[in-house]
């Protein structure tokens, strides 16, 4: 039951107009679509400027392009994230920019969907979650980056929206497809499956969850001619190749100082989510809240125990975004209905301790600033000004986006500074780079040189890391021609013309071939130092990159 939203508001024409404007902004159904349009406009700008060019995003583009060329071989290759590749295949056929813009458009639906869920759940300001989702620094970067984490956000909130409006079976279908989108979303599937077990009206969600993988498995039997193909050729390696050191790096969790920036990059309103009164939440809202909390714990804290590990990049926590935003929105609804409870101050004090710790550990003061803002909002709510608190919260969230974008770890200039330096060197020495192959282990070199830097055409050959080659061999079926077809498709759908590890020998390359190399432990696996050092001469060196030339054959 709702109580009055405000206390002693000032009267007069201007305050009245502001209140009307606030009500419209907070609840008019058109607003989320306008916000989505703004998100798409900004996203297109970022696509065209390559601000968030990303090798994983390019990989999603290549998978979709492969599926367009060889639908069955790729759709039944679980590594290709088949459902997403199917969705984006037509866009990928139009080129990288079209693919990335399509990706931005799909990501933008997360806002209106979150608002629709909030409306069904009777939030006071249903458009608030849309603002928080679309102003998330991580989602702003992930959309134009093309990474599948943004798709995970949309599909997760789509499933919840369908379930919330009573379309339980379609919700189950979406949930069932999540296994093939991002493995970590299994936690959301489990949270909503648990709801299906305990709540009779959600029971049919279980049917959908089981139906999609079953149908995919049965159809795959026709292609693979193997009853057990789905476990024999899984989406990722069940055990890493012990000879490849990259897994050791991935198993190293980020330090404590990485947690604060990642959470604020998800949404600066993350503190507001914790202040929601969880035990009063309806069952479905509670389930999604439990997913968000469990997901953040699993991805950001469990690696510290060494028990389990996901990637340490902040983008992995994105699927929690809509549910964190909905929880924050629930906090404001509670503040409108019942005021600000005293125990909020205890939570805020806890946040202050954590923020102090993060600042001492990593010199990152943004969390302290966030605690100041959250405390001001709570104080306003105590003074019966929840509407003003919501407006200030939105303003602070939007204002913080530029400052938090570096914490997304998705800006190409921050993550791959070697690209600009190495490409600038190639541009400054056209006589060296022209008419000879340029071999590289930088995944973005060819795309960056061509699209971003507008460099004259260079013949880039991409050194395929031994772990990728190993994965292709392990995860594809050689008996039905799938492995050969995938390797053949790589010639057209890869960062540049691929050079496989077994073909990379000094004797196979023309004298004068250039190597543009970035430090990477995997390189030793394909270019052992004792074998290669006598053949190479250094032309230029940078912070993490070097340009070498193949001189003589011995």
């Amino acid at each position, binding site marked *: 039951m709702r109580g009055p939203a405000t206390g002693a508001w000032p009267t007069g024409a201007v305050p009245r107009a502001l209140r009307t404007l606030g009500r419209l902004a907070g609840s008019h159904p058109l607003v989320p679509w306008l916000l989505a349009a703004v998100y798409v406009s900004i996203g297109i700008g970022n696509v065209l400027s390559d601000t968030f060019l990303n090798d994983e995003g390019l990989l999603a583009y290549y998978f979709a392009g492969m599926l367009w060329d060889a639908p069955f071989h790729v759709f039944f290759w679980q590594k290709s994230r088949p459902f997403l590749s199917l969705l984006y295949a037509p866009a990928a056929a139009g080129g990288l920019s079209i693919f990335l813009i399509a990706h931005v458009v799909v990501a933008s639906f997360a806002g209106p969907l979150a608002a629709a869920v909030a409306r069904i759940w009777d939030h006071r300001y249903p458009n608030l979650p849309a603002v928080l989702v679309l102003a998330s620094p991580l989602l702003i970067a992930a959309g134009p980056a093309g990474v599948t984490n943004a798709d995970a956000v949309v599909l997760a909130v789509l499933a919840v929206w369908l379930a919330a409006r009573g379309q339980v079976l379609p919700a189950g279908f979406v949930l069932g497809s999540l296994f093939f989108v991002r493995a970590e979303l299994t936690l959301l599937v489990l949270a909503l499956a648990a709801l299906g077990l305990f709540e009779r009206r959600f029971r049919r969600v279980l049917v959908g969850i089981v139906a999609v993988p079953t149908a995919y498995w049965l159809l795959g039997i026709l292609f693979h001619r193997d009853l057990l193909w789905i476990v024999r050729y899984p989406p990722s390696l069940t055990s890493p190749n012990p000879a490849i050191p990259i897994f050791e790096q991935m198993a190293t969790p980020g330090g404590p100082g990485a947690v604060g920036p990642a959470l604020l990059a998800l949404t600066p309103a993350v503190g507001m989510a914790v202040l929601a009164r969880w035990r009063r939440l309806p069952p479905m809202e509670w389930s999604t809240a439990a997913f968000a909390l469990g997901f953040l714990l699993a991805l950001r804290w469990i690696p510290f125990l060494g028990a389990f590990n996901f990637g340490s990049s902040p983008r992995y926590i994105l699927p929690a975004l809509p549910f964190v935003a909905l929880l924050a929105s629930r906090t404001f609804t509670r503040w409108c209905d019942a005021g600000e409870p005293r125990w909020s101050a205890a939570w805020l004090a806890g946040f*202050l301790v954590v923020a102090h710790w993060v*600042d001492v550990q990593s010199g990152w003061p943004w969390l302290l600033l966030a605690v100041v803002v959250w405390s001001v909002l*709570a*104080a306003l709510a105590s003074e019966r000004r929840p509407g003003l608190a919501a407006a200030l919260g939105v303003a602070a969230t939007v204002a913080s986006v530029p400052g938090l974008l570096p914490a997304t770890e998705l800006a190409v200039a921050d993550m791959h500074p070697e690209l600009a330096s190495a490409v600038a060197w190639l541009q400054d020495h056209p006589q060296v780079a022209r008419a000879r192959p340029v071999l590289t282990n930088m995944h973005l070199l060819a795309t960056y040189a061509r699209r971003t830097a507008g460099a004259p055409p260079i013949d880039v050959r991409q050194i395929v890391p031994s772990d990728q080659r190993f994965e292709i061999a392990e995860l594809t079926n050689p008996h039905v021609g799938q492995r050969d077809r995938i390797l053949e498709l790589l010639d057209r759908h890869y960062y540049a013309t691929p050079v496989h590890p077994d073909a990379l020998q000094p004797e196979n390359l023309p004298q004068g071939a250039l190597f543009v190399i970035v430090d990477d432990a995997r390189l*030793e696996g394909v270019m052992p*130092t004792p074998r290669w050092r006598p053949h190479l001469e250094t032309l230029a060196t940078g912070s993490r990159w070097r340009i070498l030339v193949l001189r003589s054959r011995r």
Partner: protein
Amino acid sequence: MKTPRCAWLPALVGLLAAIRLAADVVGGDETESPDGPTTGGRNAAIRPHGEAMAVWRGLTEGEKLAGWTVDCIEVASDGILRVWVGKPGVRWAAEIRRPGRSPGPPPRSTDEFDLYYGNLQPEDAKLDPAEALAVLDSLAQRIRGTDGGS
């Protein structure tokens, strides 16, 4: 049912956070790292310790190496040791790495380490390779612990 007004509680937490933030701003970038004081901003230059200290053999900031002034000494998280040197308007880093991290031959090397140069700042500045190699030679001599080794 509404809870009684108690705005002073969250306001107090906010005030404490603001004071802590202000202390950061007033205190600037000076902070103590577990390895000693940093210079030139947080985590920008961590003083060497253990093996790294042995490599430098007493090299200190402000010292001259082949006409270049040592700006700072950094043990980077990627395991590369960097000696930043500068002259007015230009700065670059000599890098000391374990052999085998890069397939090409290093410009200079010792029995235990490969020496490189790079990270020119600003990027469009000019650096005479002979001058850079002279700095690497000087560092290599120091690493070897001799006065005139090759």
